[in-house]
Protein backbone atom coordinates (compact mmCIF):
# COMPACT_ATOMS: atom_id res chain seq x y z
CA UNK A 1 0.00 0.00 0.00
CA UNK A 2 1.34 3.41 -0.87
CA UNK A 3 1.75 5.77 2.02
CA UNK A 4 -0.87 8.51 2.10
CA UNK A 5 0.32 11.98 1.17
CA UNK A 6 -0.21 14.31 4.10
CA UNK A 7 0.24 18.06 4.32
CA UNK A 8 0.00 20.41 7.28
CA UNK A 9 -1.39 23.91 6.80
CA UNK A 10 -1.81 26.74 9.24
CA UNK A 11 -4.21 29.65 9.46
CA UNK A 12 -4.64 32.17 12.26
CA UNK A 13 -3.18 30.38 15.25
CA UNK A 14 -0.21 30.16 17.55
CA UNK A 15 1.27 27.10 15.80
CA UNK A 16 1.33 25.32 19.13
CA UNK A 17 -0.49 22.35 17.69
CA UNK A 18 2.17 21.89 15.01
CA UNK A 19 4.66 22.03 17.79
CA UNK A 20 2.72 19.36 19.64
CA UNK A 21 3.20 17.17 16.59
CA UNK A 22 6.92 17.86 16.68
CA UNK A 23 6.79 17.04 20.39
CA UNK A 24 5.81 13.46 19.67
CA UNK A 25 9.58 12.98 19.68
CA UNK A 26 11.11 9.80 18.39
CA UNK A 27 7.59 8.39 18.04
CA UNK A 28 7.31 10.89 15.21
CA UNK A 29 9.50 8.58 13.18
CA UNK A 30 6.91 5.82 13.57
CA UNK A 31 4.28 8.25 12.40
CA UNK A 32 6.46 9.21 9.47
CA UNK A 33 6.84 5.52 8.74
CA UNK A 34 3.16 5.27 7.93
CA UNK A 35 2.53 8.60 6.22
CA UNK A 36 4.34 10.65 3.63
CA UNK A 37 4.48 14.28 4.75
CA UNK A 38 4.68 16.38 1.63
CA UNK A 39 4.28 19.83 3.11
CA UNK A 40 4.78 21.18 6.62
CA UNK A 41 5.90 24.77 6.35
CA UNK A 42 7.08 25.17 9.89
CA UNK A 43 9.72 22.45 9.60
CA UNK A 44 10.08 21.76 5.89
CA UNK A 45 10.89 23.73 2.75
CA UNK A 46 9.29 21.21 0.43
CA UNK A 47 6.00 22.24 -1.16
CA UNK A 48 3.25 20.25 -2.80
CA UNK A 49 0.49 21.55 -5.01
CA UNK A 50 -1.06 18.32 -6.24
CA UNK A 51 -3.75 16.04 -4.85
CA UNK A 52 -3.53 15.25 -1.18
CA UNK A 53 -4.75 12.25 0.73
CA UNK A 54 -4.89 14.13 3.99
CA UNK A 55 -4.79 17.84 4.77
CA UNK A 56 -4.25 18.73 8.41
CA UNK A 57 -5.46 22.21 9.20
CA UNK A 58 -4.52 24.38 12.13
CA UNK A 59 -5.94 27.80 12.86
CA UNK A 60 -9.17 29.71 12.35
CA UNK A 61 -10.49 31.39 9.27
CA UNK A 62 -10.38 35.13 9.94
CA UNK A 63 -10.13 36.96 6.64
CA UNK A 64 -11.26 36.69 3.00
CA UNK A 65 -7.86 35.47 1.86
CA UNK A 66 -8.07 32.57 4.30
CA UNK A 67 -11.53 31.59 3.06
CA UNK A 68 -10.18 31.25 -0.47
CA UNK A 69 -7.14 29.34 0.66
CA UNK A 70 -9.03 26.82 2.73
CA UNK A 71 -11.46 26.20 -0.12
CA UNK A 72 -8.59 25.41 -2.45
CA UNK A 73 -7.06 23.04 0.06
CA UNK A 74 -10.38 21.29 0.52
CA UNK A 75 -10.66 20.74 -3.22
CA UNK A 76 -7.28 19.07 -3.33
CA UNK A 77 -7.68 16.93 -0.24
CA UNK A 78 -9.51 13.63 0.06
CA UNK A 79 -9.60 13.87 3.84
CA UNK A 80 -9.46 17.03 5.88
CA UNK A 81 -8.58 17.11 9.56
CA UNK A 82 -9.11 20.20 11.67
CA UNK A 83 -6.83 20.20 14.68
CA UNK A 84 -6.55 22.50 17.63
CA UNK A 85 -9.25 24.72 19.10
CA UNK A 86 -8.67 27.49 16.57
CA UNK A 87 -9.56 25.13 13.74
CA UNK A 88 -12.21 23.01 15.44
CA UNK A 89 -14.21 25.60 17.37
CA UNK A 90 -12.70 28.97 16.51
CA UNK A 91 -10.73 29.01 19.72
CA UNK A 92 -9.31 32.12 21.32
CA UNK A 93 -9.52 33.93 18.00
CA UNK A 94 -13.26 33.89 18.47
CA UNK A 95 -12.99 36.39 21.32
CA UNK A 96 -12.54 38.95 18.58
CA UNK A 97 -16.18 38.40 17.66
CA UNK A 98 -17.03 40.02 21.00
CA UNK A 99 -15.99 43.40 19.62
CA UNK A 100 -16.85 45.64 16.72
CA UNK A 101 -14.17 44.93 14.16
CA UNK A 102 -13.36 48.56 13.47
CA UNK A 103 -12.93 49.17 17.15
CA UNK A 104 -10.57 46.28 17.67
CA UNK A 105 -8.57 47.07 14.54
CA UNK A 106 -8.13 50.68 15.62
CA UNK A 107 -7.17 49.65 19.10
CA UNK A 108 -4.38 47.39 17.92
CA UNK A 109 -3.16 49.14 14.79
CA UNK A 110 -4.06 52.75 15.36
CA UNK A 111 -4.45 54.97 12.31
CA UNK A 112 -3.30 52.40 9.81
CA UNK A 113 -6.05 50.02 10.85
CA UNK A 114 -7.54 49.89 7.38
CA UNK A 115 -4.58 47.79 6.22
CA UNK A 116 -5.90 44.92 8.30
CA UNK A 117 -8.96 43.35 6.83
CA UNK A 118 -10.64 41.03 9.25
CA UNK A 119 -13.97 39.36 9.37
CA UNK A 120 -15.86 37.23 11.80
CA UNK A 121 -13.66 34.42 13.13
CA UNK A 122 -14.79 31.02 11.99
CA UNK A 123 -13.83 27.47 12.77
CA UNK A 124 -12.75 25.47 9.73
CA UNK A 125 -15.99 23.50 9.49
CA UNK A 126 -17.83 26.79 9.33
CA UNK A 127 -16.06 27.41 6.01
CA UNK A 128 -15.59 23.96 4.45
CA UNK A 129 -16.49 20.35 5.23
CA UNK A 130 -14.29 18.73 7.88
CA UNK A 131 -13.88 14.97 8.19
CA UNK A 132 -12.03 14.67 11.47
CA UNK A 133 -11.77 16.87 14.52
CA UNK A 134 -8.89 16.89 16.99
CA UNK A 135 -10.03 19.35 19.62
CA UNK A 136 -7.96 21.04 22.26
CA UNK A 137 -5.72 24.00 22.87
CA UNK A 138 -3.23 22.56 22.29
CA UNK A 139 -4.09 19.14 20.91
CA UNK A 140 -3.56 16.18 23.18
CA UNK A 141 -0.98 14.02 21.45
CA UNK A 142 -2.50 10.61 22.26
CA UNK A 143 -5.78 11.77 20.75
CA UNK A 144 -4.03 13.10 17.68
CA UNK A 145 -2.40 9.73 17.13
CA UNK A 146 -5.70 7.95 17.64
CA UNK A 147 -7.27 10.15 14.99
CA UNK A 148 -4.35 9.60 12.65
CA UNK A 149 -4.82 5.87 13.01
CA UNK A 150 -8.54 6.19 12.34
CA UNK A 151 -7.71 8.12 9.17
CA UNK A 152 -5.31 5.41 8.07
CA UNK A 153 -7.92 2.75 8.82
CA UNK A 154 -10.55 4.75 6.99
CA UNK A 155 -12.91 4.80 9.96
CA UNK A 156 -14.56 7.78 11.64
CA UNK A 157 -13.38 9.22 14.93
CA UNK A 158 -16.01 10.48 17.34
CA UNK A 159 -14.91 13.21 19.71
CA UNK A 160 -16.19 12.11 23.14
CA UNK A 161 -19.54 13.80 23.65
CA UNK A 162 -19.45 13.80 27.43
CA UNK A 163 -17.88 16.21 29.92
CA UNK A 164 -14.27 16.45 31.06
CA UNK A 165 -15.55 15.53 34.55
CA UNK A 166 -15.65 11.90 33.47
CA UNK A 167 -11.92 11.78 32.92
CA UNK A 168 -11.30 14.06 35.86
CA UNK A 169 -12.99 11.60 38.20
CA UNK A 170 -11.08 8.69 36.76
CA UNK A 171 -7.93 10.62 37.56
CA UNK A 172 -9.19 11.03 41.11
CA UNK A 173 -8.73 14.76 41.22
CA UNK A 174 -10.26 16.81 43.98
CA UNK A 175 -13.08 18.63 42.20
CA UNK A 176 -12.44 22.32 41.64
CA UNK A 177 -15.86 23.08 43.07
CA UNK A 178 -14.65 21.52 46.32
CA UNK A 179 -11.80 23.98 46.11
CA UNK A 180 -14.34 26.74 45.57
CA UNK A 181 -13.38 27.77 42.08
CA UNK A 182 -15.32 27.46 38.84
CA UNK A 183 -14.45 24.74 36.40
CA UNK A 184 -15.80 24.43 32.88
CA UNK A 185 -15.22 20.68 32.89
CA UNK A 186 -18.94 20.14 33.42
CA UNK A 187 -19.90 21.37 29.96
CA UNK A 188 -16.71 20.77 27.99
CA UNK A 189 -16.09 17.77 25.75
CA UNK A 190 -13.74 15.20 27.20
CA UNK A 191 -10.79 13.68 25.41
CA UNK A 192 -7.90 15.59 27.00
CA UNK A 193 -7.70 13.28 30.01
CA UNK A 194 -8.63 16.30 32.18
CA UNK A 195 -5.22 17.72 31.51
CA UNK A 196 -5.63 21.07 33.27
CA UNK A 197 -7.29 19.75 36.40
CA UNK A 198 -4.62 17.06 36.76
CA UNK A 199 -2.22 19.96 37.02
CA UNK A 200 -4.14 21.84 39.63
CA UNK A 201 -5.81 24.31 37.33
CA UNK A 202 -9.40 24.64 36.18
CA UNK A 203 -10.78 23.59 32.81
CA UNK A 204 -10.97 26.55 30.45
CA UNK A 205 -13.28 24.80 28.03
CA UNK A 206 -10.77 24.60 25.22
CA UNK A 207 -12.35 21.54 23.62
CA UNK A 208 -15.71 23.14 23.10
CA UNK A 209 -19.06 22.38 24.67
CA UNK A 210 -20.73 18.99 24.67
CA UNK A 211 -23.58 18.75 22.18
CA UNK A 212 -26.32 18.91 24.76
CA UNK A 213 -25.03 20.91 27.72
CA UNK A 214 -27.36 21.63 30.62
CA UNK A 215 -26.61 25.33 30.62
CA UNK A 216 -29.31 26.18 33.07
CA UNK A 217 -28.08 23.51 35.47
CA UNK A 218 -24.53 24.75 35.13
CA UNK A 219 -25.66 28.25 36.01
CA UNK A 220 -27.49 26.97 39.06
CA UNK A 221 -24.29 25.36 40.20
CA UNK A 222 -22.54 28.72 40.01
CA UNK A 223 -25.25 30.28 42.08
CA UNK A 224 -24.93 27.48 44.57
CA UNK A 225 -21.23 28.15 44.91
CA UNK A 226 -21.77 31.93 44.93
CA UNK A 227 -19.67 32.55 41.85
CA UNK A 228 -20.30 35.77 39.91
CA UNK A 229 -21.97 34.87 36.65
CA UNK A 230 -20.33 37.53 34.49
CA UNK A 231 -16.86 36.21 35.24
CA UNK A 232 -17.87 32.79 34.07
CA UNK A 233 -19.83 33.80 31.01
CA UNK A 234 -16.79 35.76 29.97
CA UNK A 235 -14.70 32.68 30.47
CA UNK A 236 -17.08 30.60 28.41
CA UNK A 237 -16.41 33.04 25.58
CA UNK A 238 -12.70 32.48 25.70
CA UNK A 239 -13.16 29.43 23.51
CA UNK A 240 -16.79 29.10 22.61
CA UNK A 241 -17.65 32.38 20.97
CA UNK A 242 -17.83 30.88 17.48
CA UNK A 243 -20.61 28.55 18.63
CA UNK A 244 -22.96 31.45 18.04
CA UNK A 245 -22.26 31.79 14.33
CA UNK A 246 -24.54 29.06 13.08
Amino acid sequence: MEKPKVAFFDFACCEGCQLQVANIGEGLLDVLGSIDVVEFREVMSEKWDKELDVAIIEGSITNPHAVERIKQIRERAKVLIAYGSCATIGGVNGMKNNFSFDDIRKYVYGDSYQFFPTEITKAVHQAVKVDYFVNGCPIYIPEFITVLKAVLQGIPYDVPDYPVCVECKLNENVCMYDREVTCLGTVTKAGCNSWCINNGNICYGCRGMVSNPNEKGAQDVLTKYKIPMDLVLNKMNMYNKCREIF
Partner: protein
Amino acid sequence: MYVILGKERFNDFISRLSEMRRLFAPAVLKGYNNFAFEKVTSGKEIAIKYIPTILPPKKFFIPQRETLLEFNIAQGIDAEAVVEYEPMTIFGVHTCDLAGIQCLNMVFSERPKDYNYLTRGSKIVLIGLECNEYCDEYASCNLVNATFPCGGYDLFFTDLGDYFVIHVNTRSGDEIIKEIGSFEKVDTSHINELEKLREKKRKVFGNEVPIEGKHIPELFDRSFGASVWKDLEERCLACGNCTNVCPTCYCFDIRDEVELNLESGIRYRVWYSCQLEPFAKVAGGINFRKERSARQKHRYYRKFRYPVDRFTRFFCTGCGRCTRTCMAGISLKETLNDLIKESES
Protein backbone atom coordinates in the same frame (compact mmCIF):
# COMPACT_ATOMS: atom_id res chain seq x y z
CA MET B 1 -10.94 -15.94 65.19
CA TYR B 2 -9.89 -12.63 66.66
CA VAL B 3 -6.41 -11.21 67.39
CA ILE B 4 -5.10 -7.93 68.73
CA LEU B 5 -2.60 -5.47 67.27
CA GLY B 6 -1.20 -2.81 69.55
CA LYS B 7 -1.19 0.64 67.96
CA GLU B 8 2.54 0.95 68.58
CA ARG B 9 3.05 -1.95 66.23
CA PHE B 10 0.88 -0.56 63.48
CA ASN B 11 3.64 1.10 61.45
CA ASP B 12 5.70 -2.03 61.61
CA PHE B 13 2.72 -4.11 60.53
CA ILE B 14 2.11 -1.88 57.51
CA SER B 15 5.73 -1.95 56.41
CA ARG B 16 5.80 -5.71 56.69
CA LEU B 17 2.51 -5.98 54.85
CA SER B 18 3.80 -3.79 52.02
CA GLU B 19 6.75 -6.09 51.63
CA MET B 20 4.48 -9.09 51.06
CA ARG B 21 2.51 -7.61 48.16
CA ARG B 22 1.92 -4.16 46.78
CA LEU B 23 -0.19 -2.42 49.38
CA PHE B 24 -2.91 0.15 48.81
CA ALA B 25 -4.63 2.15 51.50
CA PRO B 26 -6.57 5.39 51.97
CA ALA B 27 -3.88 8.04 51.76
CA VAL B 28 -3.80 11.42 53.46
CA LEU B 29 -2.46 13.20 50.40
CA LYS B 30 -5.38 14.78 48.63
CA GLY B 31 -6.44 17.62 50.88
CA TYR B 32 -9.84 19.37 51.03
CA ASN B 33 -11.15 16.39 53.01
CA ASN B 34 -10.70 14.16 49.96
CA PHE B 35 -9.00 10.79 50.11
CA ALA B 36 -7.86 8.15 47.66
CA PHE B 37 -6.62 4.59 47.79
CA GLU B 38 -2.98 4.86 46.90
CA LYS B 39 0.12 2.77 47.07
CA VAL B 40 1.72 3.03 50.51
CA THR B 41 4.75 1.57 52.21
CA SER B 42 4.45 3.02 55.69
CA GLY B 43 1.78 3.58 58.30
CA LYS B 44 2.36 7.34 58.22
CA GLU B 45 0.92 7.57 54.75
CA ILE B 46 -2.39 6.03 55.79
CA ALA B 47 -5.45 7.92 56.92
CA ILE B 48 -7.03 5.72 59.57
CA LYS B 49 -9.89 8.13 59.90
CA TYR B 50 -11.15 8.95 56.45
CA ILE B 51 -14.40 9.47 54.64
CA PRO B 52 -15.05 7.41 51.51
CA THR B 53 -12.30 7.90 48.94
CA ILE B 54 -12.95 9.72 45.66
CA LEU B 55 -13.01 6.41 43.80
CA PRO B 56 -14.01 3.22 45.59
CA PRO B 57 -11.72 0.19 45.65
CA LYS B 58 -13.57 -1.09 42.59
CA LYS B 59 -10.79 0.59 40.65
CA PHE B 60 -8.56 -2.34 41.59
CA PHE B 61 -11.12 -4.94 40.60
CA ILE B 62 -12.20 -3.33 37.33
CA PRO B 63 -9.36 -1.12 36.14
CA GLN B 64 -10.47 1.95 34.27
CA ARG B 65 -8.87 0.57 31.19
CA GLU B 66 -8.45 -3.14 30.89
CA THR B 67 -7.15 -5.25 28.02
CA LEU B 68 -9.48 -8.08 26.98
CA LEU B 69 -7.89 -9.28 23.76
CA GLU B 70 -4.55 -8.99 22.11
CA PHE B 71 -4.56 -9.45 18.39
CA ASN B 72 -2.60 -9.38 15.22
CA ILE B 73 -4.20 -9.09 11.83
CA ALA B 74 -1.14 -9.13 9.62
CA GLN B 75 -2.24 -12.45 8.13
CA GLY B 76 -5.78 -13.46 8.78
CA ILE B 77 -6.78 -12.90 12.34
CA ASP B 78 -5.00 -14.02 15.40
CA ALA B 79 -6.36 -13.11 18.81
CA GLU B 80 -5.96 -14.20 22.36
CA ALA B 81 -8.08 -13.31 25.36
CA VAL B 82 -5.91 -12.12 28.21
CA VAL B 83 -6.20 -10.81 31.73
CA GLU B 84 -3.71 -8.45 33.33
CA TYR B 85 -3.59 -8.65 37.09
CA GLU B 86 -1.45 -7.87 40.02
CA PRO B 87 -1.42 -9.52 43.42
CA MET B 88 -2.09 -6.83 46.02
CA THR B 89 -3.41 -6.07 49.45
CA ILE B 90 -5.93 -3.34 50.08
CA PHE B 91 -5.95 -2.11 53.63
CA GLY B 92 -8.61 0.00 55.29
CA VAL B 93 -11.72 -0.85 53.31
CA HIS B 94 -14.88 0.38 55.03
CA THR B 95 -17.92 -1.85 55.30
CA CYS B 96 -19.76 0.06 52.60
CA ASP B 97 -16.98 -0.61 50.14
CA LEU B 98 -16.77 -4.25 51.15
CA ALA B 99 -20.45 -4.46 50.34
CA GLY B 100 -19.74 -2.81 47.00
CA ILE B 101 -17.17 -5.44 46.14
CA GLN B 102 -19.65 -8.14 47.11
CA CYS B 103 -22.11 -6.66 44.63
CA LEU B 104 -19.52 -6.67 41.87
CA ASN B 105 -18.58 -10.25 42.72
CA MET B 106 -22.18 -11.27 42.16
CA VAL B 107 -22.45 -9.53 38.83
CA PHE B 108 -19.24 -10.87 37.41
CA SER B 109 -19.74 -14.43 38.62
CA GLU B 110 -23.16 -14.63 37.03
CA ARG B 111 -23.00 -16.68 33.85
CA PRO B 112 -21.41 -16.05 31.44
CA LYS B 113 -18.67 -15.52 33.99
CA ASP B 114 -16.21 -12.72 33.57
CA TYR B 115 -12.82 -14.29 34.10
CA ASN B 116 -11.02 -11.01 33.77
CA TYR B 117 -12.75 -9.80 36.90
CA LEU B 118 -12.66 -13.10 38.73
CA THR B 119 -8.98 -13.76 38.06
CA ARG B 120 -7.95 -10.33 39.17
CA GLY B 121 -10.21 -10.40 42.22
CA SER B 122 -8.80 -13.71 43.36
CA LYS B 123 -5.36 -12.08 43.68
CA ILE B 124 -6.53 -9.29 45.94
CA VAL B 125 -6.37 -9.56 49.71
CA LEU B 126 -8.91 -7.33 51.41
CA ILE B 127 -8.45 -5.88 54.86
CA GLY B 128 -11.50 -4.11 56.20
CA LEU B 129 -11.62 -1.27 58.67
CA GLU B 130 -14.60 -0.42 60.85
CA CYS B 131 -16.14 3.06 60.87
CA ASN B 132 -16.64 3.98 64.47
CA GLU B 133 -18.66 7.04 63.55
CA TYR B 134 -20.69 8.34 60.67
CA CYS B 135 -18.49 9.65 57.86
CA ASP B 136 -20.67 12.68 57.22
CA GLU B 137 -24.26 13.65 56.56
CA TYR B 138 -24.19 12.08 53.09
CA ALA B 139 -23.75 8.52 54.29
CA SER B 140 -26.75 6.22 54.41
CA CYS B 141 -25.15 2.86 55.09
CA ASN B 142 -27.64 1.90 57.73
CA LEU B 143 -30.53 2.10 55.29
CA VAL B 144 -28.91 -0.60 53.18
CA ASN B 145 -27.47 -2.69 56.03
CA ALA B 146 -23.85 -1.92 55.31
CA THR B 147 -22.85 -0.48 58.64
CA PHE B 148 -21.56 -3.69 60.13
CA PRO B 149 -19.14 -6.18 58.61
CA CYS B 150 -20.69 -9.20 56.96
CA GLY B 151 -18.01 -11.11 55.15
CA GLY B 152 -16.22 -9.99 52.04
CA TYR B 153 -12.82 -9.54 53.72
CA ASP B 154 -9.77 -11.53 54.72
CA LEU B 155 -9.05 -9.48 57.84
CA PHE B 156 -11.18 -6.86 59.53
CA PHE B 157 -9.75 -4.17 61.77
CA THR B 158 -11.64 -2.32 64.46
CA ASP B 159 -9.92 0.59 66.13
CA LEU B 160 -10.44 0.37 69.88
CA GLY B 161 -8.20 3.16 71.06
CA ASP B 162 -4.81 1.72 72.00
CA TYR B 163 -5.20 -1.33 69.86
CA PHE B 164 -7.01 -2.86 66.93
CA VAL B 165 -9.10 -5.94 67.33
CA ILE B 166 -8.88 -7.98 64.16
CA HIS B 167 -11.30 -10.54 62.84
CA VAL B 168 -9.54 -13.25 60.83
CA ASN B 169 -12.01 -14.42 58.21
CA THR B 170 -10.05 -16.44 55.68
CA ARG B 171 -7.03 -18.59 55.32
CA SER B 172 -5.10 -15.86 53.48
CA GLY B 173 -5.94 -13.58 56.39
CA ASP B 174 -4.56 -16.17 58.72
CA GLU B 175 -1.38 -16.43 56.70
CA ILE B 176 -0.75 -12.73 57.11
CA ILE B 177 -1.23 -13.02 60.86
CA LYS B 178 1.18 -15.92 61.02
CA GLU B 179 3.75 -14.38 58.72
CA ILE B 180 3.90 -10.98 60.38
CA GLY B 181 3.48 -12.27 63.87
CA SER B 182 3.14 -8.99 65.77
CA PHE B 183 -0.28 -9.95 67.08
CA GLU B 184 -1.54 -10.96 70.46
CA LYS B 185 -4.36 -13.22 71.52
CA VAL B 186 -7.68 -11.68 72.42
CA ASP B 187 -9.28 -12.07 75.76
CA THR B 188 -12.90 -11.51 76.64
CA SER B 189 -12.34 -7.90 77.67
CA HIS B 190 -11.33 -7.07 74.12
CA ILE B 191 -14.40 -8.74 72.72
CA ASN B 192 -16.51 -6.89 75.26
CA GLU B 193 -15.00 -3.63 74.10
CA LEU B 194 -15.82 -4.53 70.52
CA GLU B 195 -19.40 -5.36 71.50
CA LYS B 196 -19.70 -2.07 73.35
CA LEU B 197 -18.59 -0.17 70.27
CA ARG B 198 -21.07 -2.02 68.11
CA GLU B 199 -23.81 -1.38 70.62
CA LYS B 200 -23.02 2.30 70.58
CA LYS B 201 -22.98 2.31 66.80
CA ARG B 202 -26.39 0.68 66.66
CA LYS B 203 -27.73 3.65 68.55
CA VAL B 204 -25.93 6.28 66.53
CA PHE B 205 -26.39 4.84 63.06
CA GLY B 206 -30.10 5.33 62.65
CA ASN B 207 -32.43 5.16 59.71
CA GLU B 208 -31.19 7.90 57.45
CA VAL B 209 -34.35 7.95 55.41
CA PRO B 210 -37.80 7.43 56.94
CA ILE B 211 -38.47 4.10 55.29
CA GLU B 212 -37.61 0.56 56.12
CA GLY B 213 -35.30 -1.16 53.66
CA LYS B 214 -37.82 -3.87 52.87
CA HIS B 215 -40.33 -1.30 51.65
CA ILE B 216 -37.99 0.39 49.22
CA PRO B 217 -38.75 -1.91 46.26
CA GLU B 218 -42.45 -1.10 46.61
CA LEU B 219 -41.64 2.57 46.78
CA PHE B 220 -39.83 2.29 43.50
CA ASP B 221 -42.60 0.24 41.95
CA ARG B 222 -44.90 3.17 42.59
CA SER B 223 -42.48 5.85 41.46
CA PHE B 224 -41.64 5.23 37.82
CA GLY B 225 -43.75 8.18 36.78
CA ALA B 226 -42.86 10.39 39.74
CA SER B 227 -42.28 14.09 39.20
CA VAL B 228 -39.11 13.83 41.27
CA TRP B 229 -37.31 12.67 38.13
CA LYS B 230 -38.45 15.73 36.22
CA ASP B 231 -36.78 17.91 38.79
CA LEU B 232 -33.52 16.05 38.26
CA GLU B 233 -33.75 16.77 34.53
CA GLU B 234 -33.24 20.44 35.30
CA ARG B 235 -30.36 19.96 37.67
CA CYS B 236 -28.25 17.06 36.48
CA LEU B 237 -25.31 18.05 34.30
CA ALA B 238 -24.88 14.52 32.94
CA CYS B 239 -21.26 14.53 34.00
CA GLY B 240 -21.29 10.92 35.10
CA ASN B 241 -19.49 11.65 38.36
CA CYS B 242 -22.13 9.89 40.42
CA THR B 243 -21.69 6.63 38.56
CA ASN B 244 -17.93 6.76 38.26
CA VAL B 245 -17.55 7.12 42.01
CA CYS B 246 -20.19 4.53 42.84
CA PRO B 247 -18.80 1.29 44.27
CA THR B 248 -21.43 -0.79 42.48
CA CYS B 249 -21.56 0.87 39.05
CA TYR B 250 -19.72 -1.25 36.55
CA CYS B 251 -21.03 -0.35 33.07
CA PHE B 252 -18.36 -0.25 30.43
CA ASP B 253 -17.53 0.41 26.85
CA ILE B 254 -15.39 -1.83 24.67
CA ARG B 255 -12.98 -0.33 22.17
CA ASP B 256 -10.24 -1.42 19.81
CA GLU B 257 -6.88 0.17 19.42
CA VAL B 258 -4.25 -0.62 16.82
CA GLU B 259 -0.60 0.23 16.60
CA LEU B 260 0.51 2.60 13.86
CA ASN B 261 1.38 -0.42 11.74
CA LEU B 262 -2.37 -1.15 11.75
CA GLU B 263 -1.57 -4.80 12.36
CA SER B 264 -1.27 -5.51 16.03
CA GLY B 265 -3.53 -4.10 18.67
CA ILE B 266 -5.74 -4.69 21.64
CA ARG B 267 -9.40 -4.72 22.51
CA TYR B 268 -9.99 -3.10 25.86
CA ARG B 269 -12.81 -1.99 28.08
CA VAL B 270 -13.17 1.32 29.87
CA TRP B 271 -15.58 2.57 32.49
CA TYR B 272 -18.66 4.10 31.01
CA SER B 273 -21.72 5.67 32.51
CA CYS B 274 -25.43 5.48 31.93
CA GLN B 275 -25.53 9.20 32.67
CA LEU B 276 -23.64 10.10 29.52
CA GLU B 277 -25.45 11.21 26.42
CA PRO B 278 -24.24 8.51 23.97
CA PHE B 279 -24.80 5.59 26.35
CA ALA B 280 -28.01 4.18 24.91
CA LYS B 281 -27.91 5.62 21.42
CA VAL B 282 -28.32 3.17 18.54
CA ALA B 283 -27.97 3.32 14.79
CA GLY B 284 -30.49 5.63 13.23
CA GLY B 285 -29.88 8.16 15.96
CA ILE B 286 -32.51 6.86 18.38
CA ASN B 287 -31.49 7.40 21.98
CA PHE B 288 -33.41 5.18 24.35
CA ARG B 289 -32.57 7.40 27.30
CA LYS B 290 -32.32 10.79 25.79
CA GLU B 291 -33.57 12.80 28.76
CA ARG B 292 -31.30 13.35 31.71
CA SER B 293 -34.27 12.53 33.91
CA ALA B 294 -34.61 9.10 32.32
CA ARG B 295 -30.94 8.47 32.92
CA GLN B 296 -31.06 9.60 36.52
CA LYS B 297 -34.12 7.46 37.09
CA HIS B 298 -32.28 4.51 35.60
CA ARG B 299 -29.42 5.08 37.99
CA TYR B 300 -31.71 4.99 41.03
CA TYR B 301 -33.59 1.94 39.78
CA ARG B 302 -30.30 0.18 39.23
CA LYS B 303 -29.47 0.81 42.86
CA PHE B 304 -32.77 0.15 44.58
CA ARG B 305 -35.08 -1.85 42.38
CA TYR B 306 -33.66 -3.97 39.54
CA PRO B 307 -30.94 -5.79 41.52
CA VAL B 308 -33.40 -6.75 44.22
CA ASP B 309 -35.00 -9.21 41.81
CA ARG B 310 -31.75 -10.49 40.39
CA PHE B 311 -29.49 -10.57 43.43
CA THR B 312 -31.83 -10.00 46.39
CA ARG B 313 -29.91 -6.99 47.58
CA PHE B 314 -29.56 -3.29 46.97
CA PHE B 315 -26.77 -2.05 44.77
CA CYS B 316 -26.37 0.99 46.98
CA THR B 317 -23.94 0.66 49.85
CA GLY B 318 -24.78 3.97 51.46
CA CYS B 319 -21.26 5.32 51.02
CA GLY B 320 -22.62 8.72 50.01
CA ARG B 321 -20.11 9.25 47.24
CA CYS B 322 -22.64 10.17 44.56
CA THR B 323 -24.02 12.94 46.73
CA ARG B 324 -20.62 14.17 47.81
CA THR B 325 -19.37 14.39 44.24
CA CYS B 326 -22.38 15.98 42.58
CA MET B 327 -21.78 19.68 42.02
CA ALA B 328 -25.42 20.06 41.12
CA GLY B 329 -26.20 18.98 44.67
CA ILE B 330 -28.33 15.99 43.71
CA SER B 331 -28.54 14.02 46.92
CA LEU B 332 -29.47 10.40 47.24
CA LYS B 333 -31.11 10.83 50.62
CA GLU B 334 -33.03 13.82 49.38
CA THR B 335 -34.24 11.98 46.29
CA LEU B 336 -35.45 9.07 48.42
CA ASN B 337 -37.15 11.49 50.79
CA ASP B 338 -38.84 13.22 47.88
CA LEU B 339 -40.02 9.91 46.47
CA ILE B 340 -41.47 8.96 49.83
CA LYS B 341 -43.22 12.29 50.14
CA GLU B 342 -44.58 12.11 46.63
CA SER B 343 -45.85 8.56 47.00
CA GLU B 344 -47.58 9.45 50.27
CA SER B 345 -49.35 12.49 48.91
